[in-house]
């Protein structure tokens, strides 16, 4: 209950209409065997060969312990992962357990966290009993993932987190498949256009820098 679906709903709300698809929620209310959401997004990119549509599917995974197989299935094709953590101190243990589960699921799929770009979002910043910003800043220095602070229910930090995810995925795919060379899409231009599609009024580099910690920053400029 860290706010995965709320994040997706907020992302759907905030994204420009021509870039977002219909939010799909898969829920079987009888036995709750499955539960996840999917939001298709389309980003336009200018390449030397003309305009190109880049299609992104954003999935949430079911949080419940019993849905390991659904989580694995969703993870098997993931190009990047956003880990949504609950900022409440009382949820520290659940966050850790979920993170370990993510790590184990990736391992079971023959992947590792090293291959899959990951961002961490500390959601529910609006609640009481949460870790302070200073604590999060301090903790973020100890990890390699970019960390975002959010209140998805108010739409805060959602675009920033998603942009970090998109940027991580794009740069990883670019490294692996040499997209810049093959598709002639200039990464900065793509990211600038993506920021517009996400309804961000400012400059994309501000969006790109809206995180704390993380080694991603050092390696991408």
């Amino acid at each position, binding site marked *: 209950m860290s706010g995965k679906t709320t994040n997706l709903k907020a992302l759907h709300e905030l994204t420009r209409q021509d870039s977002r698809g219909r939010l*799909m929620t898969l829920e079987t209310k009888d036995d709750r065997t499955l539960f996840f959401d999917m939001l298709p997004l389309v980003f336009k990119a200018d390449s030397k060969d003309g305009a190109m549509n880049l299609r992104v599917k954003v999935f949430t995974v079911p949080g419940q312990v019993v849905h390991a197989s659904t989580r694995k299935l969703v993870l098997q094709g993931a190009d990047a992962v956003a880990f949504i953590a609950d900022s409440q101190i009382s949820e520290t243990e659940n966050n850790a357990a979920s993170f370990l589960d993510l790590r184990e699921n990736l391992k079971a799929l023959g992947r590792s966290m090293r291959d899959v770009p*990951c961002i961490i979002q500390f959601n529910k910043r609006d609640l009481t009993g949460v870790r302070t910003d200073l604590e999060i800043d301090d903790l973020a220095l100890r990890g390699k993932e970019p960390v975002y602070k959010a209140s998805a229910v108010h739409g805060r930090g959602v675009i920033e987190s998603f942009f970090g995810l998109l940027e991580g995925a794009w740069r990883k795919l670019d490294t692996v498949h040499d997209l810049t060379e093959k598709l002639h899409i200039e990464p900065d231009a793509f990211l600038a256009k993506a920021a517009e599609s996400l309804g961000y009024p400012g400059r994309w580099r501000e969006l790109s820098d809206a995180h704390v910690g993380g080694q991603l920053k050092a390696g991408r400029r």
Partner: protein
Amino acid sequence: MSAMEENDEDVTADAPIALEDVVDREALDDLCRSMYGLFDIGVRVYSSQGVLLANVAHELDVCRFVNETPGSRAACGQTVSAAKNVDPGESGEVQHTCFTGLAYRIVSLEHEGRRVGRIVLGPYAPDTLKEAAPALAQTDKRLDVVQANERLARVPRIGPVQIVRIGQHLKETLELIIFSSHKAWVTSKMHLYSVRESYRELQEKTVRLEQTLARLKEVDRLKSNFLATMSHELRTPLTSIIGYSEMLAEGIAGPLQGEQEEYVRTIHTKGEQLLRLIMGLLDLSKLESGTMSLRQAPSSISPILKEVMSTLTPVARKKEVELVLDDDAEVCELAADAERLRQVFINLVDNAVKFTPKGGRVSMIARVKDVPAARGDDDDDDDDGMIILVPMMKAVEVRVADTGIGIPASERTKVFDAFYQVDSSSTREYGGTGLGLSIVKRIIDAHGGTVRVEGNDPNGTVFVVTLPSAQTRRAALPSRVPPAPT
């Protein structure tokens, strides 16, 4: 993809859907028929592959008339074919005019930002149409344009706003059907996968359980043999020696003279010493072979240390050594075998008391500490998710410090070797089997912890035991340590 079956369809993949796969044709036909009934306009639905999925239209009177002349019939065929293939452009909808002056409305069907098919509405008469287009007369000279115009006049007129709305309504309805059908498809795929994956996991677990069972049976058999031998062949006669020497010493078999009594008491003491050695060896061999089962359960260090304190206070008092416990009472859940940990600290504290002279001090200091970032247990993932895991990564550190004779720095790493004695001379002052610390080390190792020796300025020794919290152990060995009950 190792754990997944290779032929599993990946529902997260971005394969375009085929309209013919997800839409029920009969239901589609019904929908188009009701649209036709409402607006009297023909409706055709094509998939992106050009497959005609629904065709609800009656030939208009004017069309039938025009089709009677060969030239016009050919032109009609071309128009229909063009309507089927014309690009609806960026906006996804376009009007395609027929040579008669009638028109078709072409609206593309989209799903997840992709064109998956098209709706062709028409032919219909735009409300601006007064008479047949000049092109009609040119298709065939034999065509009677006046009659064609009369028939054209009877086709109901539809305004541009209305035709756009009809097209949009049909498009939205169909896209909703496509979305729902796709959703049902994903759900069924996901269910299928879940069941298949659960079955595969169960099979794997069964195989692992069977292997473990076979191994445990074998180990159990070996252990039973070993224990039987040790218990019977060594302990039974030894128990007799201890028992009879004790009876002799107590004068049950008659009074003994001074020197006789002293010898018998020596036999008894050495017998007890040998029994402890055998028991220690038993423990050590069990720990080394991995057959000593640790009953790891959620536990806390405080009650263990308090118990050690109460057990050894009389011993310390007798030796006039001060024994103190300094536990800041911060709770840190361990996944540990409390009984084995008690054995560890009894051994360490007992040793400390033994090597501390009268008037000295032995202290147990327990603190909860953060585990350093590099855990070293997991090749690639050491710094993954540290922000999430660090708050959970705690360890309990217990320092057993004495003010005794101390251990020289060069000897400190060797004290955990079996049978090692710092003073190995035959005239050594302090007794002991040399097994206690090696047992301590193995028990601590089995808990994922560490033990080391430090000097205690100005004299004495500190044994530092570090035990990872249950959470930290789960981070390192998630499959081996059960989660704490909630």
